[in-house]
């Protein structure tokens, strides 16, 4: 099982990378960490004639934390984000989620931006980006632009990024003060693609919920956000209406059946994981209060 022949390009700067992408058009593909792309190449599910290897491009490897959020450059590996204490302080959901991305030996190579651009519905980081209303910073021959998560994902492994554009960073936005987050997923084997997963953000004023939102892994075609506020607003977490939450999740998700699990099982799992994640936040809040 070997990739088909391709021409390897090793640009040193973002403008060089964009120029090559513009030149090769639809026959080109960006190679960053390669942890999703190389298997697809080896199985010959994709056979681009040109790979634009951005591994040597300067200035893409920084994690920057400011008051608005966390900016992650295109060469930051999942493991680098996982280790980044300041990023985890600003946005605990990043570390909560990235630990679920495959295995350590994949996270040392795979990039967070690549995972977002790959737009696999089974990916954890697209769900996180959607939940925190993040954006992707794009460089292209027509200059730079920013794409909001809501405008990025159009379908499984499909985005609004053009073939001549390079995602140079993603920006994860901080949640409002008083927000607690959780991430939960279930897979047949540790590190494998999740059958279902959920990222959760609940904003509290005192003990009372003012907003609650969730995004999902492996059970929606794109990581769109479910607003749980209607069933949780005004309640304290101990009064969690588990049945109503589960019903809302079941109505939102749209899983497919495959060899690993039928759609109905995934739907139940997504609902159950959401309820459990909420209970986890409740217990955390209790422990914090005690």
């Amino acid at each position: 099982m070997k990739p088909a022949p391709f021409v390897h390009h090793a640009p040193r700067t973002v403008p060089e990378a964009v120029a090559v992408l513009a030149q090769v058009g639809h026959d080109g593909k960006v190679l960053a960490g390669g942890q999703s792309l190389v298997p697809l190449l080896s199985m010959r599910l994709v056979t681009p004639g040109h790979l634009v290897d951005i591994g040597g491009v300067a200035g893409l490897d920084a994690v920057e934390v400011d008051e608005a959020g966390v900016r992650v450059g295109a060469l930051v590996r999942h493991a680098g984000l996982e280790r980044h204490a300041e990023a985890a302080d600003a946005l605990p959901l990043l570390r909560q989620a990235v630990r679920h991305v495959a295995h350590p030996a994949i996270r040392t190579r795979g990039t967070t931006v690549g995972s977002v651009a790959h737009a696999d519905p089974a990916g954890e980081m697209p769900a996180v980006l959607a939940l925190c209303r993040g954006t992707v910073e794009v460089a292209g021959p027509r200059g730079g632009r920013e794409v909001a998560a809501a405008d990025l994902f159009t379908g499984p492994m499909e985005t609004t990024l053009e073939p001549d554009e390079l995602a140079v960073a993603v920006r994860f936005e901080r949640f409002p003060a008083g927000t607690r987050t959780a991430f939960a997923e279930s897979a047949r084997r540790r590190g494998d693609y999740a059958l279902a997963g959920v990222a959760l953000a609940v904003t509290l004023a005192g003990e009372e919920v003012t907003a609650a939102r969730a995004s999902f892994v492996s059970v929606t075609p794109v990581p769109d956000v479910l607003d749980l506020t209607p069933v949780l607003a005004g309640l304290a977490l101990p009064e969690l209406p588990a049945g109503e939450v589960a019903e809302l999740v079941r109505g939102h998700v749209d899983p497919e059946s495959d060899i690993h699990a039928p759609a109905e099982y995934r739907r139940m799992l997504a609902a159950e994981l959401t309820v459990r994640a909420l209970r986890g936040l409740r217990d955390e809040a209790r422990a914090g209060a005690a």
Partner: protein
Amino acid sequence: MSGQAGSAAGAPGAEELLEVTLRVNGVSRTAGVPARRLLSDFLRHDLGLTGTHVGCEHGVCGACTVLLDGEPARACLVFAVSAQPHEVTTVEGLGSDPGALGPVQRAFLECHALQCGFCTPGFLTTVTAYLEDTPDPTEAEAREAISGNLCRCTGYQNIVSAVLRAAELRRGATPEPTP
């Protein structure tokens, strides 16, 4: 480094070769290979370092795990040409002299943590890197540390024991006498 458009696609016989130089186990090695040469195949075919085993070739089994700058990585998911900035360590680099095995190798030997041995190189590299970060793991942590490596023979029990034993050996505990 960039290839010329049009020379590669569709004509494997005429595929352009790139000169790839890697530092492997402290030694600089060069070979002319196509851009699509995976690091796993580069090590085995071009450098003759057959200690790195190739199992699933899509990142699932962990048999081809090597260290890039000390961090574990799947050699089947990295192109040789992309690995050039990194220091590569293969299982041969962990100690290839039977008289001077590294602590992880010794622990696997002592604990009978292998049967057919196919998956072993990937476990040895994975565990070596893991113990650098986590020198004193619990049994549960040891189990999680090897969760990205598949073994079809052992049932993992002895591999978990070996991870814990390797941690002891690294901390300088007296090695058990070899029978």
